[in-house]
């Protein structure tokens, strides 16, 4: 992970990092201080004296079965979302990487969903996937209740994952395509000589060689899945956490709690737990996965 050739200076790197660190301190850590403070008090929405309650907020959070439900939903969403975006991106990147005639055009088209704003994407999917109006309505009329995210939590979860995957597959696609193009040609050729066909080559050679890219995507997509603005937007706009808390991911719950419930303190406590969770995840990713990533 460390490079060999490094400059020696302490003030220069500090100066270089300073602008960003300053912004982060101002707009991230300083507000975060407030979030932490709220987590230990009962903060009235409009401000004013707040009572210190110690860990009571955390106790409430942990005692709430719906909170644990949201943890599970979040885990499923982040994992399934991450894996499916990476999977779709990978399959398409592998296809485009074969450089058949026409792949240049689709390459461009595949990135487009990423450029679309969450609300617009939500609207489109409302017309496509709603069980009584969109495309799925006709499927439902043939097989009643085949698709009903308003009824089944599992369908709803699939729905939000689909929107997430649609939105981000273009993003993973482009990174993976780029990664594929930097895999030495001779390796796939060697595998071809060893008798493996295109799919086998992809699985045995190309995918393992994409490790650095996959790692980057794993970290960013997991984080995006857990706390991304899109995650909140997608859930809020398509299922509103329902049916019956079936798609209530942690970030949605936090925002709802804070803004709908005006319970800043409870939301802050949840945020802190969430950050803790993601940090553990990220730590694991860096510790155990990046180790296996070779950068050159």
């Amino acid at each position, binding site marked *: 992970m460390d490079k060999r050739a490094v400059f020696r200076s302490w003030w220069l790197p500090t100066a270089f990092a300073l602008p960003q660190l300053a912004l982060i301190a101002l707009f991230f850590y300083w507000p975060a201080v407030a979030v932490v403070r709220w987590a230990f008090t009962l903060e009235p929405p*409009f*401000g004013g004296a707040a009572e210190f309650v110690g860990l009571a907020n955390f106790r409430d959070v942990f005692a709430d079965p719906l909170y644990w439900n949201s943890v599970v939903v979040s885990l499923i969403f982040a994992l399934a979302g991450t894996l499916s975006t990476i999977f779709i991106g990978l399959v398409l990147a592998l296809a485009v990487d074969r450089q058949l005639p026409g792949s240049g055009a689709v390459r461009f088209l595949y990135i487009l969903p990423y450029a679309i704003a969450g609300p617009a994407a939500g609207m489109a999917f409302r017309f496509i996937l709603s069980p009584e*109006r969109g495309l799925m309505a006709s499927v439902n009329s043939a097989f009643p209740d085949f698709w009903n995210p*308003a*009824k089944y939590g599992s369908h709803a979860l699939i729905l939000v994952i689909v929107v997430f995957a649609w939105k981000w597959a273009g993003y993973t696609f482009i990174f993976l395509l780029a990664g594929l193009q930097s895999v030495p040609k001779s390796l796939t050729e060697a595998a071809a000589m060893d008798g493996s066909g295109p799919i086998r080559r992809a699985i045995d050679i190309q995918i393992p060689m994409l490790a650095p890219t996959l790692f980057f995507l794993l970290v960013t997509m997991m984080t995006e899945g857990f706390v991304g603005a899109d995650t909140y937007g997608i859930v809020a706009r398509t299922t*509103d956490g*329902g049916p*019956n808390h079936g798609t209530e991911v942690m970030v949605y719950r936090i925002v709802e709690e804070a*803004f709908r419930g005006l*319970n800043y303190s409870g939301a802050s406590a949840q945020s802190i737990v969430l950050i803790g969770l993601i940090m553990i995840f990220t730590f694991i990713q860096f510790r155990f996965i990046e180790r296996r990533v070779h950068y050159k």
Partner: protein
Amino acid sequence: TTFTATPAHAEKTKFEFWYGLSGDLGERVQEACSKFNQSQGDFEIVCTSQNGYDTTLQNTIAAYRAKKQPAITQIYDAGTLDLMLSKAFIPAKTLMADNGYTIDWNNYFGGIANYYATAAGELNSFPFNSSTAMFYYNADAFAKAGIDFKPDTWEQVEEAARKLKAAGYECPMGMSFDTWATMEQFSAIHNQPIATQANGYKGLDAEVVFNKTKFVDQVTFLKKMADEKLVVIKTKQLGMDVVPAFTSQTCQMIQTSIADHGTIGKTLPEGVKWEVAMLPVWKGTERQNSLVGGASLWVMAGLPDAQYKGAAAFLNYLGTPEMAQWWSTVTGYIPVTKTGFDAMKANGFYDKAPYKGRELAIASLTYTPTSENTRGIRLGGFTQIRKEVGTALEAIFMQNADVQTELDKAAERSNAVLRRFEKTYAGQTLN
């Protein structure tokens, strides 16, 4: 050196107004603002949509905490208590008095004003876009199904539904999980409490009781109807809310806000006959007044006096009969003052086609003097409570969960919200 500004070049006092309406309703608010700006030369109101009631409340809070609050903000019914306890506003009466306006506060319909008033009956905020829930039905379908009565009672609704079903209508009545009509309005007109302490008016220690009232029977009834496909669930998630379901003639009966009156008229194909009525009650019930919905305008504290002058002028301007009529014409909202309503009635507003029936909303709101159960709802974190009940309904109707169990759960969770709220505002009392 000193400058003496000549009146001609005097800077107009600018002040801000944040509102939650969006879409074409947002446009109407903008129009009201420009009308005001053109009507006088001293003030300039800058109106900004925050695109939704909940974001308006959030943003108002954030702004207030940062001391960047607007002079006027539009807060929906469910946020009333949060504002009241915030000490972040200037009561309506104080504002108008301080700025030299004499308002006849009794001119506001009691059913409307009570929601936003102190225990002593003094208005904290200005009722603005007010509504109440109504019952809409497709008269053409009724005729086809051979229904020759108006659905005044739930028994009649059931009967009508059966006839409509028999006549081949897939969705006799549409229903969503919005609690406003199904729980709040139902409870009010049946004189059922939602919470103890007069729905919270008497103290922060109120507890919800909706799991012990007629509301439980109502849910059970609706669920039975749903099982028989007499009631059909229509939500955004399914592809269509109740209003589009009605306007697309999928569903023949719905409960929704009077504010949708205009939209329904515009969206239903021309020539379709439809009617609006007061919400049905169970036979033998003594009907009570319904609850006011919509939002009111709050004046935020902590700003220079000049801005308050402007705010007062604007609020006064909105209160003029002409403006009241204009507002009710271009939206589906009802006039909030008696004089406004009388004026409109007098000039025949409610006789003509698109507006006919809207007067029933006033009738519903003013059906009786308010009781403890119909004054309004003053519960902390009420949005959250609505969500809990909505989720319970979702579980009951979509996933066949047990009515009582789900409502008990919702009540328990709602009470937790109330207790936390009480603790947050420990030491404060309702005035």
